[in-house]
Structures are given as C-alpha cells and as structure tokens.
C-alpha cells in the first residue's frame, strides 16, 4: 500500500519536473519577445483551469486527442506503427457528415448512433488497407499509413469541394448535418459536447480491452515478441488485421466526434494534426489507456491555455508552439530515473579521476 503511494507521487513528480523545466526555458523566450512570463503562464492556467467554463473548454480540446491517442496506443502496443490515424479520422469524419446530412427524419438517438457506426466503419475499412498489406505481404505499415494520410486528406477535401460542397459556400465545407445527428452541448457557455462522453466511453472500453481481455494480452505479447506469439499460436497476421481495425474504428470515431459535436458539418482539412498529437500522446502515455487520458488532458490544457495566452497577453502563436514543443521534449525523458542515473554516473567519473 505504502509502495503504491510512493509510485503515485513519483509519477506526479516525474511529469512535473519536465513541465517546470520547459516553462523555465520558455520564460527566457517569452522575455526575449518582451512579454512577462508570469503573466503569460498565469493566463495559461487561468484560461485552462480557473473556472467551470475554462475546465469544460479544456475537456473539449482534449476530446479528439483522447480518441486519436487511444487509436495510436492500441496499434503501438502491438508494435504496429499506425501513423495513419489522421487519415482514418478524416474519412470517418466525412462518413459521419454524409450520414448526418443525408438521412432525414430520424430520431436523434438513432441518427447519432448510425453516424457513429458509419464513421467507425469507414475508419476501420481505411485502416484495413495497411493492415492487410502488412499481414499478407509484410509491407511496412508505417510507410503505407504515412502515404495514405495524404491521400485521405486530398480525397475528403475533394469531396467537400466538389460533389458535396454546400451550395453558396465559398470554402470547402459540406452542408450542415441534420439537428438529429448533432451531439448536443453538455453545458452552455462551453463547446464541450456529447463527443466527450463518446471519448470517455471509448476510453473505458479500450481500458477493458487492454487490461482485462484476451486480445489485450495478445496485443502485448505480439508487441513484445512477434515470433514467440506466432509460435504459441496467436496467429499474428490475423491479429494485426484485428488490432488495426480497432485502431481504425477509434480513429474514425475521433473524426465523427468532431463532425457531430464541434463543426456539425464536414470542413475540409479541419484537423490541426489531431492524429500526430495523438501519436505523441500515445507515446507519452506509454501505450497505456490511463496514460493516454492524462496526456490528452495535458494537451487540452496546453491548447486551451495557449489560446488564452494569446488572447489575454498577446503572446504570439508561434511562441506558444515552441513552449508546447519544449514541454513535449522534456516529457520524453524519464527524468527521475535518469536524473539519478546521471548524477551517479557523474559521481563515478569524478571519483575515477580522483583515483587516477
């Protein structure tokens, strides 16, 4: 019991240190730009966490990241490099929008459900392409998913620009989805919507899958030793297809959430690299669903707080990017363990020199 508490403290500390270090480096840059670091950082926290609305907006900003983070984590856990979450998200989003504006006269609950299923299905189908190529012909999934992202973005932009463009719109968007397909707002004054509930639901399911289910066990095993897993009969090729499908479903749902909850129509190139951020989050969270959830919340804070930094203090967007990058960079390192390792190493070297 005592030990657990210690670990808990330790993990808090080990994520606090990098954030503080990043803030320290960031303050130098902020000062160079002629702003006050204290003002900047306090506006970040005020904007992200100071009141109910701020918190709700932070959760709103986290919503797509929870899903893209989980989608990536599922694949990475099995050592499958699904870098195509971005593309899967776009196709899922478009499918949801299409179902959202074509189906009419539906009861709201059913309509939303259909859009969710449709978007998830399309995300899955798209993830199946690299999965099948990998399973049958051992084609590198990382390259294929990277390439297909571009194709997916081009394709959905085309759809929104031409065949499905909203009449009269001067940018590439479709018409609005039916009100029955919208994921409702949860609170007034914040953009937080039903998409968050979906994300939390998916989180719970993924947690159960990874921690409690047979497939989770197999994912773990395949991720650590492919050949062993094949030898004990896990049928790695089939599992790759299955795992990628699940990853695609979750990625697709990320897109659906954005369409049904945030934009309420399909907007070409709406995602500010949710897929890539999800990848970072999955790695920071060590492919662990709880870690992903924590990472997504952190990024939500950074995004929501970052806008406040701009709105309230006028810190330029580019600097906010730098600070976010710094935080990620420092978080990549397991400080507590390495820090100790580093000091002992230095001590040893020092001692050795004294002896010599």
């Amino acid at each position, binding site marked *: 019991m005592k030990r657990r508490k210690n670990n808990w403290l330790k993990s808090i500390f080990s994520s606090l240190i990098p954030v503080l270090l990043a803030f320290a480096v960031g303050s130098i840059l902020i000062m160079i730009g002629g702003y006050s670091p204290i003002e900047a950082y306090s506006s970040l926290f005020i904007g992200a966490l100071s009141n109910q609305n701020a918190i709700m907006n932070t959760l709103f900003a986290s919503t797509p990241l929870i899903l893209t983070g989980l989608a990536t984590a599922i694949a990475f856990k099995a050592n499958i490099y699904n870098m195509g979450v971005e593309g899967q998200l776009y196709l899922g989003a478009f499918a949801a929008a299409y179902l959202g504006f074509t189906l009419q006269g539906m009861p709201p609950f059913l309509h939303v459900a259909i859009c969710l299923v449709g978007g998830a299905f399309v995300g899955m189908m798209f993830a199946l392409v690299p999965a099948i190529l990998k399973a049958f012909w051992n084609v590198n999934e990382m390259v294929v998913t990277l390439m297909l992202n571009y194709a997916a973005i081009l394709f959905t932009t085309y759809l929104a620009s031409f065949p499905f463009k909203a009449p009269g719109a001067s940018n590439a968007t479709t018409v609005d989805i039916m009100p029955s397909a919208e994921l409702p707002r949860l609170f007034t004054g914040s953009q937080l919507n039903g998409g968050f509930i979906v994300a939390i639901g998916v989180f719970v399911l993924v947690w159960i899958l990874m921690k409690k289910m047979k497939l989770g066990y197999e994912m773990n095993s395949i991720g650590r030793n492919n050949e062993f897993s094949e*030898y004990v009969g896990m049928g790695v090729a089939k599992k790759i297809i299955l795992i990628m499908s699940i990853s695609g479903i979750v990625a697709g749902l990320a897109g659906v959430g954005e369409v049904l909850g945030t934009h309420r129509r399909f907007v070409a190139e709406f995602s500010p690299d949710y897929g890539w951020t999800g990848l970072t989050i999955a790695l920071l969270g060590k492919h662990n669903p709880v870690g992903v959830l924590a990472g997504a919340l952190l990024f939500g804070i950074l995004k929501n707080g970052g806008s406040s930094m701009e709105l309230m203090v006028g810190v330029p967007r580019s600097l906010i990017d730098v600070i976010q990058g710094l935080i990620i960079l420092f978080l*990549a390192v397991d400080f507590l363990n390495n820090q100790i390792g580093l000091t002992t190493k230095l001590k040893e070297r020092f001692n050795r020199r004294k002896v010599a």
Partner: protein
Amino acid sequence: MDELLLILHSTFRMSTPIALAAIGGIFAHRAGVLNVALEGMMLIGAFVGVMASFLTGSVIIAIIAAILSAIILGYIFSFFGITMKGNVIITGLAINTIVLGLTAYILQIFFGQRGVFSNPKIVGLKPLDIPILRDIPIIGDILNHHTPMVYISLISLFVAHFTLYHTKLGLYIRTVGEKEEAAHSVGLPVNRLKYTAVLIGAVLCGLGGINIALENVTMFVENMTTGRGFIALAAIFSGQGTPIGTFVFSFLFGFADALQIRLQDIDIPGAYIQMIPFLFIVVVLTIVGIFTVRGKTSRGFKNE
C-alpha cells in the same frame, strides 16, 4: 521524348531535398535511432541558411551556418533521445514543433516579418553548367543544369554507401543498430556512435534545407519543408535502410511528383492526380512485398 527528359530533369530537382534528408537519415536508422526530426533539421537549415545569406551575403557562410544549426539540433535530439534515453519519436516530433514555432518567432521578433522572408539581399545558389556533361546527349539533358545540392545528393549516395559498407564507422553504426550488446561487448562507444549517426544526418538535412530555401527559391517560408522529412523517412523504410534503395525510393517519389504536376491538366479531379506520388509508393511496396513473400516457407513475422 523531350517531355520525358524534362520530367526527369525536374525529378532530380524535386527528389533532391528528400534524397539528402533520406540518405542522411539512413545512418541514424541503421544505428537503431528512429529520427523523425529530419523535418525539423531541414527546416532549421533552410531558415538559418536564408538568415545567414541575408546577413552576410555569402552563400558559403550560409551553407556552413545551415549545417551548424542542423548539427546543434542533432545534438539536442541526441541528448534527449540518446543520453537521457527519452523516447526518440516524441523527441523528434517535439523538435519539429519547436523548430516550426521558433523560426516563425525569430522572424517575427528580430525581423518583423511573418510567414515569408524574402529579400533581394538573400544570395542563392545557381544551377551549374558542367562542360563535359553538357555535351552528352540525353544524360546531359537530364543531369546538366542543376544546382550544386543536386550533385551533392548524388555524391552523398556514393559516399554513404562507401561509409556504411566499407569503413569502420559504417560497420560500427550497423552493429549498434542491429545488436547493441555486440557493440558493447567489444567496447565500441555505443552512444558516441549514435550521436555520430544522427549528426551525419543533420549535416545532410542542413544541405537539404539549403536546397529548398536557397536553390529552388531564395526565401524562407514558414513550414516550407511541408512534410519532406517524413517522405524521406518513408523512403528510408521503403529502401530498407540501404543507400541505393533509399535513393531509388526518393527518386521514385520525386518522379511521381514531377509526373503528377504535368498530369494536372488532364480532365479528372485534381485530387486524384495529386494522390499519385503517395499511392505510387504504396503500390511499389506492395509489389515488392508480394514478390518477397512468394517464396516464403516459414510462418509469421520476424521481430524488429
């Protein structure tokens, strides 16, 4: 025929930044370090190259500065990813984000510019007219009249191949990547080798940045590398980490892109044409995969 020559000429131009970054990236790849910071290294090279050229008016200084800046980035990447044992993918992605923001930020606070920095004072590199090459039919048409980095990318292919397979450094880098314990057990400086591998990549990425910002055009634009670092990464994986294979894939991508540009006038939706380079790579890899797997008699996948 003429059209084909033009496409091939253009292919060299378009594949050069990718090839430079990819060939540079091979070393880290072979040392077992997944370097997703190629993108950031190219971008910093482009930025610093333009700044140095603007401030000093010297291309040589610009090239040196670009390389140095990429090396510094390489050190940061290596320090966090290798010495501090951070996750290298996160480290790389973080570095890309930082470079993107930092270049824009510096431009804004020191030069009062946003987005684009172009100025007549920026000196670029011009295409070369090479005497003998010029007169060889076909080959001359394709290979003459390129900017220096195009030739450097070709030279780097041979140098990389030689280094990787015929020198100690290359052998050690491959050892570290394939079996770190083996390197450790004979006392090879594992970390130093990884650093070196990353830094070689940084040098070539710096040159790639020069190619993008001081040869193709003479200006800096925020995020002007637009994912070429990732295409380079894809080329490395597709070429299975061999210099020749990697170059071939960089070239194929450049070719498909050059072709795509010329096909845009055909009357089918532009999006489909623009997908060509990306789908082309997938198709090529699939064909390669089908042929490789055909004779396979053992079940399952090898561990990576």
